[in-house]
């Protein structure tokens, strides 16, 4: 049977196995005794009849033969239609299979022989030896026609044999036309009888999915596509693309545009996205598409082909540009009543820790203030108000200035930039608030202001391009901190935009012999972000040259790791496209060669779940190296990046990471917590939480630091009480260790990010789509965390702001046709995997009813609890436009 041989079909396979197992298991117990002695009269008669038929078949008289075959056929068909047990006629005919077979050989070609072939084919279902494929053999020489009449079980068996035969013939390069004929019939049969999964399996086996298009109809296309898309995750390339292509076409055929768009986005196929727009005539639905594109975070320009009317186009482009994100987020915040700004102390909750908490030192610690700056920025992100940076500055104390100056030197950069984080997505007021810092004569503050502008504009596009206008002039300033501020700001605000104007500004820096290493490193990163997943040749060339120009000493610097990372980001998720560049990287200085290799590999296969790459990376981690080699860090991160795409892979990866903790060298152990953090980002699984909690007390302080940061990552934006408690205890445990305490504070800020309204997960739309910019932001931070001391604990702590790329409200906000928020009841519950299930199974379990806007936690799904409205997208996440249901009647 097809599913058992195809390990890739998960949902359908299990179910079918069950069905086929039932048949033999029921049989022997009940029937054994009966068989010999007490056959009922009916059965006895049937048996005798069949025996008679068998004899008559061998009769030379063709008339008699025919009559016998007809009767036999009647008997078999009549009984196979029920599936409860092994059909009796089959059972009674078993002993005669050999006789009939022998007789069949002697027969001359005739209709009668075909009839007999049919019957033998059915009998072979139970009799044929393993691998003989007799059933198929007889089928092919039998009568052409309705195979469904022989019953489901027979068709299934046939499908399985076809798959085997197909592979055999492929290897022999034999013709397959006759098989395909049969496949046609079988697929048609399956599709008509709620067995879409089996049809898909068969077609995948015979590599002819196009056939599906002819056979799907309104009733079964959803289940078919559902099965196809979820099977795609487990298929090797390029089959997965093919499968998704088919399901895109099916969705398009049935005008299920949101799903089609989802697949188009997954395939990163702009042509398809366009097609969705041009095929759909409804403006409101197009608006919904725009929301989906905006959530995915790609830059997309609508043209007049997609939307004819100019005003409409502008309105739609506004949605794609995410201009309303801030508004929607604040609506959510007001509804949940969390507008009140929180101070870092509200997060630390030191009063819950008696005795041990540091005795309120009278002198400011720059490190602790910096931590408070970040906590404040993360917690109040996007709310537009806080209690440190935006408090109205009165002339006497100038309190807003005050907090800024409570940070030391480079700390002021992060402090000024934190204002951008607080005003996140609100470009208008954000820019006006940051303005005052532009007039400062303190370079770190200017740098912070520039970075802040970048952060405010993260994911938001504006016609006036304020970020480029403001930052452009600062890229070539004298002071390198100002340059970095501007470069990083551009990278964050234009991530994924592939903006040529910026490239022409940044590329020269890479190959400027006079530019300091840190400026080059950040320029490379920013270019990587702007051209994330674009495979842009020119950018790649610039970075490669920059890498080759580095001196031996510079290659040892921790910041150098951003160069290969920038290169890797260009190929994020692009699989084979990386190969040419990977070849070039083999010529690099050996200090960076392996690091580059691992980074490229892990980025290129990020989110693909490619098992072979996981094995490659595991092999790298298995080596025990001399001290000083750093490439195993990115290899461990790479494991998580590749495996993070689906639940099964995540679970397996968590287990193999556990193994590495036990047997790996120290440099691997240091990366393991970070990998765990990536796998479960914003998804606090209890087992991972426990592992990290254990590691946070590790004797190696770098392992402990990584574990602490990862605790923050897995709990990011969840307000998870357990992690919060763990971190609180850690803060008292490490009260004397300034570095670890800093990490604990950052983690605390992450857990309460956006007061619990945000998520860092790069996956959205029911974990189907992976936002490349979001992943780029997280991966950059993790690479920085591989060597904490010189970067995050040094003067480049602002790399923490790269997380802003992944920050998204974890909300579902329903809006009416005028895009005004509309509160409707929804059920929110744990999502259930319904792939391959027949009928209309429940998609959520253990739900609660709320009214929108609502928060969605990891693994949760929402569904409308009212029939009054119809959502324009089946995936209820983010902004959802509701249309009034014309058929709705008030009760």
């Amino acid at each position: 049977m097809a599913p058992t041989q195809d390990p890739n079909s998960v949902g359908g396979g299990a179910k079918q196995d069950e069905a086929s197992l039932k048949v033999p298991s029921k049989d022997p117990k009940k029937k054994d005794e009966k068989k010999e002695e007490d056959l009922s009269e009916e059965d006895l008669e049937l048996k005798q009849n069949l025996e008679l038929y068998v004899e008559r078949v061998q009769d030379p008289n063709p008339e008699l033969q025919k009559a016998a075959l007809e009767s036999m056929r009647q008997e078999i068909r009549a009984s196979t239609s029920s599936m409860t047990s092994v059909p009796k006629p089959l059972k009674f005919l078993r002993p005669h299979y050999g006789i009939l077979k022998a007789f069949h050989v002697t027969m001359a070609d005739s209709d009668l022989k075909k009839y007999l072939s049919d019957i033998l084919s059915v009998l072979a279902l139970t009799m044929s030896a393993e691998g003989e494929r007799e059933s198929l053999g007889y089928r092919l020489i039998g009568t052409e026609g309705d195979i469904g009449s022989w019953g489901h079980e027979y068709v299934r068996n046939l499908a399985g044999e076809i798959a085997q035969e197909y592979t055999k013939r492929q290897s022999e390069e034999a013709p397959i036309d006759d098989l395909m004929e049969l496949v046609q019939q079988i697929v048609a049969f399956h599709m008509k009888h709620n067995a879409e999964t089996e049809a898909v399996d068969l077609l995948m086996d015979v590599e002819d999915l196009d056939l599906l298009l002819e056979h799907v109809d309104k009733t079964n296309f959803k289940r078919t596509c559902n099965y196809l898309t979820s099977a795609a995750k487990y298929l090797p390339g390029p089959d997965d693309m093919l499968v998704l292509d088919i399901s895109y076409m099916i969705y398009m055929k049935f005008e299920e545009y949101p799903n089609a768009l989802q697949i188009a986005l997954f395939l990163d196929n702009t042509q398809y996205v366009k097609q969705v727009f041009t095929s759909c005539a409804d403006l409101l639905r197009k608006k919904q598409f725009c929301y989906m594109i905006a959530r995915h975070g790609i830059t997309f320009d609508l043209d007049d082909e997609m939307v004819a009317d100019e005003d409409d186009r502008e309105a739609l482009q506004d949605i794609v540009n995410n201009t309303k994100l801030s508004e929607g987020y604040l609506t959510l915040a007001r509804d949940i009543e969390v507008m009140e700004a929180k101070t870092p102390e509200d997060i630390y909750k030191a009063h819950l820790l008696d005795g041990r908490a540091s005795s309120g030192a009278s002198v400011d610690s720059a490190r602790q203030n910096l931590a408070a700056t970040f906590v404040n920025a993360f917690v109040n992100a996007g709310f537009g108000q806080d209690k440190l940076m935006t408090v109205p500055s009165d002339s006497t104390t100038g309190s807003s200035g005050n907090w800024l100056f409570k940070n030391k030197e480079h700390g002021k950069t992060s402090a000024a930039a934190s204002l951008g984080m607080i005003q996140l997505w609100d470009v208008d007021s954000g820019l006006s608030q940051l303005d005052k810092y532009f007039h400062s004569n303190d370079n770190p503050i200017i740098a912070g202001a520039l970075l802040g502008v970048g952060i405010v504009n993260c994911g938001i596009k504006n016609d006036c391009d304020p970020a480029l206008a403001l930052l452009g002039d600062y890229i070539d300033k004298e002071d390198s901190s100002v340059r970095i501020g501007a470069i990083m700001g551009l990278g964050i605000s234009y991530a994924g935009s592939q903006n040529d104007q910026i490239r022409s500004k940044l590329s020269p820096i890479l190959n400027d012999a006079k530019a300091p290493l840190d400026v080059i490193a950040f320029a490379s990163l920013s270019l990587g972000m702007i051209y994330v997943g674009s495979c842009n040749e020119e950018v790649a060339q610039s970075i490669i040259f920059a890498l080759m120009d580095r001196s031996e000493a510079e290659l040892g610097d921790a910041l150098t790791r951003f160069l290969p990372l920038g290169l890797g980001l260009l190929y994020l998720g692009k699989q084979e496209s990386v190969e040419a560049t990977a070849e070039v990287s083999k010529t690099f200085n050996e200090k960076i060669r392996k690091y580059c290799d691992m980074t490229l590999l892990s980025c290129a296969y990020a989110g693909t779940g490619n098992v072979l790459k996981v094995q490659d990376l595991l092999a790298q981690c298995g080596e025990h190296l001399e001290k000083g080699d750093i490439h195993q860090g990115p290899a461990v991160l790479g494991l998580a990046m590749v495996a993070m795409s689906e639940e099964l892979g995540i679970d397996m990866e968590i287990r193999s990471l556990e193994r590495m903790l036990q047997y790996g060298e120290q440099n691997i152990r240091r990366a393991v917590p970070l990998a765990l953090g990536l796998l479960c980002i914003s998804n606090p699984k209890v087992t991972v939480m426990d592992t990290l909690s254990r590691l946070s007390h590790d004797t190696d302080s770098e392992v402990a630091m990584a574990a602490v940061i990862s605790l923050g990552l897995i709990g990011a934006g969840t307000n998870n009480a357990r992690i919060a408690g763990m971190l609180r205890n850690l803060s008292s445990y490490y009260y004397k260790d300034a570095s670890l305490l800093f990490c604990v504070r950052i983690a605390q800020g992450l857990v309460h990010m956006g007061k619990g309204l945000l998520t860092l997960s790069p996956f959205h739309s029911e974990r189907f789509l992976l936002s490349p910019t979001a992943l780029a932001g997280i991966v950059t931070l993790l690479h920085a965390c591989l060597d904490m001391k010189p970067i995050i604990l040094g003067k480049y702590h602002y790399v923490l702001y790269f997380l802003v790329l992944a920050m998204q409200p974890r909300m579902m906000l329903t809006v009416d046709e005028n895009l005004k928020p509309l509160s409707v009841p929804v059920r929110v519950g744990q999502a259930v995997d319904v792939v391959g299930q027949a009928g209309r199974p429940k998609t959520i379990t253990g739900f609660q009813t709320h009214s929108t806007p609502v928060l969605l936690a990891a693994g949760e799904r929402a569904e409308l609890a009212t029939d009054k409205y119809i959502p324009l997208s089946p995936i209820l996440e983010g902004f959802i436009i509701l249309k009034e249901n014309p058929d709705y009647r008030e009760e």
Partner: protein
Amino acid sequence: MPTVSVKWQKKVFDGIEIDITLPAYVFKAQLYDLTGVPPERQKIMVKGGLLKDDADWSAIGVKDGQKLMMMGTADEIVKAPEKAIVFAEDLPEEALATNLGYSAGLVNLGNTCYMNSTVQCLKSVPELKSALSNYSLAARSTDVDQTSHMLTVATRELFGELDRSVNAVSPTQFWMVLRKKYPQFSQLQNGIYMQQDAEECWTQLLYTLSQSLKAPTSSEDPDAVKALFGVNLRSRLHCQESGEESSETESVYSLKCHISHEVNHLHEGLKHGLKGELEKTSPTLGRTALYLKDSLIDSLPRYLTVQFVRFFWKRETNQKAKILRKVDYPLELDIFDLCSEDLRKKLEAPRQKLRDEEGKKLGLQTSAKSGSKDSDVKMTDAEASSNGSGESSTVNQQEGASSGKETHMTGIYDLVAVLTHKGRSADSGHYVAWVKQESGKWIQYDDDNPSMQREEDITKLSGGGDWHMAYIIMYKARFVSM
């Protein structure tokens, strides 16, 4: 002439006319009228760049109805505070020490934890520190020998060094002097110095200090140490055989808490310790007879030291064996019923006052704070008030309970230091000091490693297992001002 709309903050100004023949500065002046933002602070964004003051409109190619965006505020520009902010990271080590909230640890010089913990406990007495700082060679009385003098000076130096330093201090000098003065501490075993009984160290050190800090010249402070630690006991001797009674007074530096099978709590142990039997020649009987001795406290010290008599000489093993029995002690000790009649009378009024004050505080706070928190608050508040009063009255307060002064003893004491022992005999195991800081936080001084502890963990040092158990504890008197 094209008209444009300008977006500034959340406002949009529609229909602004641009005269393309004039430089952009004129346009900025127009916006100044509308927004109040001075032209030099305006940033106007036109496609991919900022609008320069002298820019030529025709080169920019502004279109009719185009939207421009302006950034800029008339707000005050941020200025660095005039007084630069000092960061902990920049401070020298000494300055950091005062910020830490507790002083440094002491390096173990080889089985010197008994000494380290004793020093840490005694250092927590500020009055002793100030008395030591007043000590000078000139002032020393003639009857103090050289070694005592040296030990006193070494103590003073060590206390000073501990307060200044962040990292652990090595008490080499102090130790040498201590061994010189008390050669019993130089006992060697297998070539290394032996572990000693902390109680012995404590007693000897206090004795030396009391001798050297006796200032015969100044009348107001005859015996600083005695004023701080001395307990006057009035004992009544009663002979059951003859029925005769006598009374005597004595002064001790610590009360003993005897541990027997009935003793579960410090209070019982103290009571037990104040009763005794002794054999003495009876003048009436003309032979030795059994006397019952019944002691009561006659005057209270500022610091009440209690020693748990955990060690006894075990003849079989020829060493000081330890009683592991759990004896609870409170954070707040009331010894009213151990006082003599006279003293009790003196204490009554201050105690009443104290109760009133606490009642008042509680009354004010009952609604604000919940159950368990209450006692903590009360404690720290009371602590603060007693600290305050302690400062107002000078160190030379002779008898705490003597009338006429502003502050009065109440017979209530707060726990301030615990010296614990871990191990099975006095000459082995490990001594650790647990000291309450002025900030109210408890610090565990385990040789060179001080660490914060929670108050509820301090009361868990009461024994009954192999964990650290209290050996010597020190209480500080609570005063009330009247």
